[in-house]
């Protein structure tokens, strides 16, 4: 089964973690354990093909700026999240995207721009048009989601899988990283 490494990026408080939890768990679970790997993995079927998605959620570590490069180096696809209720979170994405392109040393990287919290229409400050303009400029897909109301959450990740498939139809063979082994005693 092909594995996909997906990185969720965006400023603190935009609901990145909610997107991940909603996608992976589907429902709020009582016995949630963030320390196990299953909290960040999900097997899905996209276009008739089984895929294993591994999500790297940067939630809580946004301010460790020095670590972003590493997240980016390891990711194959990127979810760039802002909150439609906070303009600054939208403004931050330009820099993040540039950094991704620099790290990847490519002009085009699988990416989805996500305006989250679309259930909070009354607090909206970033217009839908603004989002879609930025997506045009990024040359990437755009969706408005609500992790809370379960709107478009799966679509974000499916779209990313399709983009990755299109960019590199087969398994990513580039030896960009050495195989990582677990430490055993």
């Amino acid at each position, binding site marked *: 089964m092909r594995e996909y490494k997906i990185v969720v990026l965006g*400023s*603190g*408080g*935009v609901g990145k*973690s*909610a997107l*991940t*939890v909603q996608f992976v768990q589907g429902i*709020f*679970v*009582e016995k*949630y354990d*963030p*320390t196990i*790997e299953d*909290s*960040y993995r999900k097997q899905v079927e996209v276009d008739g093909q089984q895929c294993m998605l591994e999500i790297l*959620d940067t*939630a*809580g*570590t946004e*301010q*460790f*700026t*020095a*670590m*972003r*490069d*590493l*997240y*980016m*180096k*390891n990711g194959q696809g990127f979810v760039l999240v802002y*909150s439609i209720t*906070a*303009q*600054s*979170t939208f*403004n*931050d994405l*330009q*820099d993040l995207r*540039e*950094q991704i*392109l*620099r790290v990847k*040393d490519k*002009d085009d990287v699988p990416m989805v721009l996500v305006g989250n919290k679309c259930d909070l229409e009354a607090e909206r*400050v970033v217009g839908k048009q*603004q989002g879609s*303009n*930025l997506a045009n*400029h990024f040359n990437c897909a755009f969706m408005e989601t609500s992790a809370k109301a379960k709107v478009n959450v799966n679509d974000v990740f499916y779209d990313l899988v399709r983009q990755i498939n299109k960019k590199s139809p087969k398994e990513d063979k580039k030896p960009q990283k*050495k195989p*990582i*082994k*677990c*430490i*055993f*005693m």
Partner: protein
Amino acid sequence: MFQQPTWRLWGEERVDGAIYTVYLKKVRYHRPTRSASSESDDEISHLEWETVRVRFVKAGTVERLVEALATDDGELESTYVNVFLATYRSFAECSRVLDLLVRRYEALAAEDTLPAHAPAAPGADHSHQHRKTLVACLHVWLDTYPEDFRQPPHHPALQQLLAFTQLHLPGSELHLKVLQKLAVFSAERNGGAHVGGGVCLAPGMRLSAHHTSTYRLPHVPHRHFAEQLTRMDMELFKKLVPHQCLGAIWSRRDKDRSHDAATVLATVNQFNAVSFRVISTILVEPNLRPADRAEILAAWFDIARELRVLKNFSSLKAIISGLQSNAVYRLRKTWALLPKEKSELFEELARIFSEDNNRWAQRELLMREGTAKFADTVGENDRQLQKLLHERGSPGVSHGTIPYLGTFLTDLTMIDTAIPDTVADGLINFDKRRKEFEVLAQIKLLQGAANAYHLPSDAMFDRWFDSVIILDDREAYQLSCQIEPPTNPPKERRPRKIVDNNNQCHRKNDSIASTSSSNSSQFYCETDGAANAWKRDSLERRTSPTRLSHGSSSSSLPSLDVSLSSANSGQKPPNGKAPATSPAYANTRNGPDFYIIRVTYESDCVETEGVVLYKSIMLSNNEHTPQVIRNAMLKLNLDGDPDAYTLAQVLPDREMVLPANANVYYAVNTAYNLNFILRPRKSQQAEPVANGKPKNKRN
């Protein structure tokens, strides 16, 4: 003796305002010792086991949760008290909880004095015990979380507690404790000694700006560096307030992190500061020979290795992150020069922090070594680390542990997201708090272990640490590309972006709710009309909240603006003009040629109070004195005519004043550090005005 109890979930029990989870616990019947009660009837009872019903609060109203601090029998429920006090801030204010505790005490006391109660009635005993438990809770609270009661200027919660103890418990231990805390807090206010979330200059910054530090990578004592980094981390880690890591406090946008999570922020900033130093020391001299640069890389490996031995996973990860940052990692030619065992060492250290399997490797390692005395865990493939631990044997001294905090922060953020705050009927979900406490308890445990470190401080190290120039990631990339040009040049990417960027910028300015206004002092315009997207980029960067918050807590750090407008003229200095031993000798390659220089502002009348700030600016090979002065003035926030200032390089034995129209790039003495002083020209009438700093004005 009790055998390991066997637990069985029995079900839920609902009462008004609370839901309990009920377990049945099977315990071995405790046999009284023979000597204690010989021949008693119990002795012949053949009861081996009994089943006890145990209730845990699953959810409840604040009132019910406060009540649950004591059991039904009025005993102290110590685990519950710990969880409650560590996490209550996410569902109630300090004053509310205090209020409920006090009222509960008063209700019990009132019950006690009712005439209906006979003096020896069992109810009175019970009430007495219950009140004792509440007082014990208050003790634990005051001892463990004194910060909760720090509410300057009047400390109302403490005042309330004082009034309570005066009335009900005069002269008691609690009363004295409250008085003492109040005295301490008040003294702090008067002395102004409290250092909270405010900005304070790092110790090293208070020294002369043109101090030349004696540490210079790669020739530094690795072990000593690792110890000093650990000392810095340890001080911050011990001060860390665990509940500030909670998702509801650290990760919510509407919270003011610099205040509500100051101790977490300080730790994160230190982590970044270490990474930045790695990146900077490797890149800042673009003209080093690759072999020399590889030596600096290797020096960081060796420092990282020592950090592993010291079990300082924070700085260890910070160094690994710095080495893996794009600007450093892409220098293939440099990395290729490293000997095989050095590369192996790096890979083994990097493997510790692999993101694979939800960071299994580092979680496992922390579990094993967190409270162990010294490092002893290596993987079977870790040849270099095996060798290291073998050489060291088991050290005589034991070490503490400093964890990488990010893993805990992510875990707590995910818990906060995944588990709802309330359950049916709006009751507070206390099970969520228990889950959070599991993480907080780990942090506390490690904080206790950190006391095992005994590391002397070295002021010279602090000075070195503060003297390193900080590059943002764009600047770092820029320098990196100068060292090793990209193999596939970025084609059309850059120009296209510049155009887009401008559009983007205009649009942003039109949009509402910009958060950047508070930061307007960082804005400036290129006066000579050479403004370009690079400048704009760097200007935009500074307005993003992430940068902002970083900047606010480290405003004393030097920053660097890369201005390509003046750096891409393509002129080259003649070969061999600068001595090869200089810290920055002339570049003979294509591309922008520049030095990074530091400029301090000095005038007779500036009241500096011993604080000297310097700014780093880029000096390209076609810049003449007036331009350099202009650049320095921009960075130092000075208005006025550049001719009103002079610029001088600080040399060990004297100062070299630069001629009025020199090519500064050629004129400077590169055999020494490039430290400069900008000062108002004597006998000049024009009045320099420093923006926003009225005390810089002439008297």
